[in-house]
Structure formats: C-alpha cells, structure tokens
C-alpha cells in the first residue's frame, strides 16, 4: 500500500492482505540498505492472522520516495508518523539490525503508542567498520558484498533458504543494490555509526520486549544484544544456534514461531 508521510510517498507491504483499520498494527522496520522484502516470511503470517502487518520501505529505500533519513532519531520520528498516517493510535514494532536502533529510539520517544517491541539482531550501538562505511559512502558495490558476507552465518553461506529455490545471499545483494548504494546503505551506515543514544533509550522502555539473537551474528554479536536486553525491564531473549545476522531469512521459521508467540500474547490479534 502507498500513503504519504511528510509529503513523501511511502510504500509498505501489507503481507498480501488489504489494510483494515480495525485490526491491530504491527510495523516492521528493515535494516541498513535493505527493503520491506526482508520481512516476507514474517509479515504474511501476521497479515493472515488478525493484524495489519506493515513492512515499510524507509524513505529513499525500496519503493518509497524521498531521500534517506540521515539519523536514527529522524527515522524513529518517521515511524511514529507512519502510525499516524495510517490512522492508528498505537502499534507493535519489529526491527532488524538498524531497524532495532530505530524502534528502540521510537519506543523510548513514544511510549504511550508502542505496545510491544521485537528486536532481531539488535544492539544498543552499531559502530561501523570505517572501511566498510567509506566503501558504502563512495558507492562501491563491494560494500554490499561485504555486508552480505558478514550478515550471513557459516551455515547461511551455503544457502538453505526456507522458501524452495530462493538463494539468500544473491537476493539480499539484489535488494541492497536496487537503489544507489551511497544514498541508501551509505546514509544508513553513517546514521548507525553516529547514533549514541541506544542504551539510554533502552532504559526508558516499559513495554513487553523480545530480543532474538543469533550465535553466529558477526554484525550485532549476542553479547551486544544481551547487553541491550539487560537494560529493558522484563525483556525476553531468544538465542538461535548456527545462525547469522540475517536470522529473519536464515532461520525464518524459528523467528516466526518465537515472534508469533510473543506478539499474540502481548498484543492480541483481532479475532475473526
């Protein structure tokens, strides 16, 4: 579906179901340089089970217009604006990687609106490797190749996509190269590198929170995810073995099972 935020057109996948204002809203926020496509194995389930599942393309990403937002704080405000723009008063947020920084910041800023928070491959800070940052800002496709290498665990490097016939690494590469690298990945990496408020923001979060972490995550290692989770009251943590940073694809079924239980318990769907 398409709608406007700050006069720019936003694209959000609805998981293949029409948007229905009566249903509770879940917003999925993608990672650096990526798009709504990363959530396809989570959103469709929620869309068919009593929720509005909105996997947004951040401004300047995927099918959304406008320029990429330059800071995590701006992105957090933008997510809040999305809730308003689609006519809801509250939402459940799900973030991956950079999307975790955004959703943590958003939840701390708008605690009355955010009912649950689910973090995948999250950390309180994501400082960037300077060379990787420089490659992305200079529009070098090697930045995407490096990101795809580091983002997949040793098992994920062999493939084994849950959807028969799909090959993760090439699909991720194609998503990250679908728009100009320096305008998406470059801006996003810089925003992550600049963001210093994650741990303070986490301390303000009071809603039910879930962190899904992966043992082979090189980009946001388990210990960083645990550190963030420890600052959030009552936060649940689920750790997936033999999996890298792209857990939402590498172990999509496991992620969906954990996420489903957490969200349906804490933010029930509209019963049919």
């Amino acid at each position, binding site marked *: 579906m398409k709608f406007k935020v700050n006069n720019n057109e936003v694209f959000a996948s609805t998981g293949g*179901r029409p948007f229905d204002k009566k249903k509770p809203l879940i917003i999925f926020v993608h990672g650096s340089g990526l798009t709504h496509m990363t959530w396809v*194995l989570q959103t*469709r389930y929620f869309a*068919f089970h009593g929720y509005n599942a909105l996997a947004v393309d951040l401004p300047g990403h995927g099918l959304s217009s406008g320029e990429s937002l330059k800071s995590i704080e701006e992105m957090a405000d933008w997510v809040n604006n999305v809730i308003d723009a689609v006519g809801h008063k509250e939402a459940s947020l799900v973030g991956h990687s950079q999307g975790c920084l955004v959703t943590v910041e958003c939840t701390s800023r708008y605690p009355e609106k955010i009912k649950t928070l689910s973090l995948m491959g999250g950390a309180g800070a994501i400082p960037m490797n300077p060379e990787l940052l420089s490659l992305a800002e200079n529009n070098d496709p090697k930045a995407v190749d*490096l990101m795809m290498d580091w983002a997949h665990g040793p098992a994920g490097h062999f493939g*084994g996509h849950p959807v*028969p016939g799909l*090959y993760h690494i090439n699909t991720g590469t194609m998503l990250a190269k679908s728009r100009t690298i320096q305008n998406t990945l470059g801006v996003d990496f810089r925003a992550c590198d600049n963001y210093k408020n994650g741990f303070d923001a986490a301390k303000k979060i009071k809603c039910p929170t879930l962190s899904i972490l992966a043992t082979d995550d090189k980009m946001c290692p388990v210990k960083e995810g645990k550190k963030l989770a420890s600052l959030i009251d009552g936060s649940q943590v689920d750790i997936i073995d033999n999996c890298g940073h792209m857990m939402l694809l590498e172990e999509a079924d496991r992620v969906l099972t954990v996420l489903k239980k957490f969200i349906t318990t804490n933010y029930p769907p509209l019963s049919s």
Partner: protein
Amino acid sequence: MSDKKKELKPNTYKFDTLSLHAGYQPHKNAGSRQVPIYQTTSYLFDDVDHAAALFNLERGGHIYSRISNPTVGVLEERVASLEGGTAALATSSGMSAIFLTVMTLCEAGDHLVVSSQLYGGTVNLFRLTLPKFGIKCTFVKPRDTEGFKKAIQKNTKGIFGELVGNPGNEIMNMPEIAKIAHDAGIPLMVDATYQTPYLCKPFEHGADIVVHSLTKWMAGHGSSMAGILVEGGKFDWMQNDKFPTMTKPYEGYHGLSFAEEFGPTAFTMKARAEGMRDFGPCLSPQNAWNVLQGIETLSVRMKKHCSNAEEMVKYLSNHESVAWVSHPSVPDHPDHQLAKKLLPNGRGSMIAFGIKGGKDAGVAFINNVKLASHLANVGDTRTLVIHPASGTHSQMDEATLKFAGLSHDMIRLSVGIEDIDDIKNDFEIGFRAARKPRLVSNQ
C-alpha cells in the same frame, strides 16, 4: 615487516565451492554428507495452522512434490548461486522450463521477439504451439541486433534467444539486445544451456531470466532429463503496466501481488505458485540428485570439453574432407571477438562443420564412426554427432531449414572428454567412409 592494512575482501564462496555445497546444510539433514533423495510425494503438516500458512505462502516449506521437493530445492539453490541469480525453479526438462517461463510471462494476445537460431524443438514451440495459446512470435536472426528492436510491438512482453545459436554457433550480442529489451521495458530471456554458468553468466550481461536444459553439460553424463529457469532479480516488473499478472492482485492467492511481495524473486515465485500448480512439469528427486552429481564436477568437465573442442577445431580446419568449420574460437568466425568477451573461460564444445560430399557423405560419416555416438543430445561426457537436417531439425521444411541457418552438409558435433587422439582416430574412420561414395560415383 609491512604495516600495510589488510584490504577487506568478501569471503562468500566461489564457483567451484558453490558447485559442491550451495543449497545444502548437512546439520539440518541428519548429518548426511550427501544430499538425501527425498523420494516422497507429500509432507506432514504440524497442524491446521501450519498447513494454511504453507498454502498461503506465509512461510517457506514443502506441501506436495509437484510444487517443491527438498532434493530438487537444493538443485534450484545451487544453480541460482552459480548463475548469480536470486531464485530458480527446476522442471522436468529444458523444454518445460522454456514453456513455464513463457506462460509465467505472457497471456493470450501477447507477443515475443525470438532469435531464429534455436534448438528445433524450441523453434516449434514458438512457431507452432504458442500461437495456439494466443501468443505470437517474430523471429529475428541472432546477429541482427537492430532487427530485435524493430520487431518489438506494443504487446511484446520479452525477447528470447539462445546465447550461442543451435546448431550454427551464431552469438547474440547479449549486452546490446538486453539494452534494447530494457529500453522497451521488457525482459531478456536467454537459454544458456550450451554455456553453463562456468562459461558465461548471462545476468552479468543484462539477461533477466536464464533457462537451461540441465540434461546437457550441467548434468553432463547423459543420464537424466531436467530443466531450470533462473531469475536475475534486477528486472522491475512495476516500471510499466505491461505485466499485470506480476503486479496486480492475483485471485489464485487471495489477492497477492507477486512483484510487491517478492520483488527480486517474484517471477520464480509466480512460476512455482501458478505454473507448477497448474501445469505440473516437476522434476523427480532422483533426477535432481543425478544432476547435482554432475554439477559437482562442472568446472573440471567444462575445461576438458573446451580444450578438446579447440583441438578438434584445429583438426577439422586442416582436414581434406571438411568444407568449413564453425566454432567461436575460430578467428574468422563472425562472432569471434564477441565470444572472447562473453565466453572468457572457453567457447564451448559445440562444433558445426560441413563435410565435403554433402548429405550422402554426412550420412556415411555418421553411420561409420564407432566411438562418437549418433544420437539426439548434446553435452554428454561422451562425444556425440548428428546430422541436423535429418535429425534434430528434421521436422522443418526446406525454407525453415534455410532460415535456421542449416545446410545438408552440416554435422553437429558435441565434443566429449575422451582422449583427444581417440576422437580424432574415430573421425578418420568416418571421413574414410564418407569419401567412398564419391569415389564410387566418380568411376
């Protein structure tokens, strides 16, 4: 000691490693080092909710082996990884891969621009069968790059060709034809059976969909039929209104828009969800496993195929019984320079040559070689020969044969990986027999 900082390099697996490992994780399959053959029709659902989720494409998994199968899935991922594609769908043969590609792309009333130099079966599909479904085609000679542009109509949905034409070895200028297709907002589909991803990766040169008959070099041992379509993931189906079945809500899946939901894998998802469901040309797990065995040695075999082919080109070019030789490695081949660019790892192992004495000599040659096998296949580990005018392309009339670039003296040779001296010795037997009819008729 140097204090130079080590350059960051991606450590994703490379071609030879992917040939052996891509698409398979032993720890998820009882530790089985070899890919298991899932010889089953169907798969248990955890509960009703799980079943509904699989049918609605809410989660990945298998339902019924016509739609997908874990062994076939490994093959699909492996080929996608080798091609640099986002997704792949294996089929029961190369022809079914082409048919499924066309039926996923087109509807009645649509039009395709097609290279004229194709495998005979493919020509008949485009010329005779697809019109029965309301899909019309305009044929263009593969070297007539401008002709592809001129043939595009308002209702044209794609361009299709074999990178290296069958059997004449004409090469399509893929980068230029891809540009023509993309300027018109349509995809380029390439049959890259002759090349395999070891010799050429069409996505790097602008192709959007690649099809293979895996029966040939990919499987490599003449044992199993299989085909595949592979998606490059770059084509934007939403850029215009030409592809409503990709972009508009699809009734068959609760209003799903394949392009919106699946982006760079949308074509494959539609081909599977709709095409495999409705047409059902599924690959058997046993044949998928056989092809996987072949792919494990793809690069080793292709090197030998290509080196033997180049030896045979030299031998045939200097032979008194040979009128002409066509292979992209020959410097005077019209596409020699293009071949160097598109096929840097070797020019393939298909050779066409003309035998002096015409059709009678050709028949005598074919009937007398002992090592080379006379059969309707290419890309076996063994050397294969056929006389196209009386074999693979025999269903064509005289005019169509001429348009397809075929002549009665042409022999198609698929060079195997036997010892090169044994192949040459065998050909000497064939050439001696081929000269006899002429000696008799001259007396």
